[in-house]
């Protein structure tokens, strides 16, 4: 199964749309599996990152009998130092974003902790792509 969702940058009222849709799809496919919660946390955080930092973005989801593969691709500023960005507590979010309770510097680590495979590719001035893989059965 293949799904795609666009993410509108800067619009916090729409954050969570893709993750909410994925939760519904996954519940129909596998029921109340603990993987559903993990995937949804990872995708939600990725959506927040695009809305908070990028100019536009896209979520691409592929589900087969073994795994769920989520790609989140954005056009944006990119991340100059990925290692630093992965550190819990490090954030470059704006004051406005922080006031809403986002920008705690936990997003990328929440994604990593809630996926089985996590890859990040980024180019400064061009954008960032995440690949999040979750296996339906323990590997």
């Amino acid at each position, binding site marked *: 199964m293949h799904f795609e969702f666009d993410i509108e940058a800067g619009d*916090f*009222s729409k*954050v*969570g749309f893709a*993750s*909410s849709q994925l*939760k519904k799809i996954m519940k129909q496919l596998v029921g109340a599996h603990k993987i559903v*919660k993990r995937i*949804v*946390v990872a995708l*939600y*955080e990725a959506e*927040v990152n695009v809305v908070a930092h990028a100019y536009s973005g896209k979520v691409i989801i592929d589900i087969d009998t073994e795994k769920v593969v989520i790609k989140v691709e954005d056009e944006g500023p990119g991340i100059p130092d990925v290692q630093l960005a992965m550190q819990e507590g490090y954030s470059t979010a704006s004051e406005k974003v922080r006031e*809403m*309770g*986002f920008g*705690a*510097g*936990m*997003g990328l*680590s*929440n994604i990593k*902790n*809630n996926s089985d495979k996590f890859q990040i590719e980024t180019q400064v001035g061009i954008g960032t792509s995440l690949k999040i893989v979750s296996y339906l059965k323990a590997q």
Partner: protein
Amino acid sequence: MKVSDLIEKLNLELVSGESGIDNQISGGYVSDLLSDVMGSSKEGQVWITLQTHKNVMAIASLKDLAAVILVKGFKPDEDMLQQSNEEGIPVLLTNETTFDISGKLHKLLK
């Protein structure tokens, strides 16, 4: 314990999400950082916060939380109310501080 019991015992005001008043409560979580709640809250918990925008309900829904309590007389934004009703997750109001209402909830669930 159900959300309806909580409303009565802690004298909370139910403002939306009434269809969820029979939700069972497994515990509580206190934080105003959304990523913290996303990463660490557990299904069935009551979330105590001062954040009043609709992203609160998105997280409450994705994490299957039982209810949200807004502290210190804070009122939810209109779109938060709307999403609370759509998701069936009650939003409850109190004039008490986070410290006081958390203490009472903890005592009640112990």
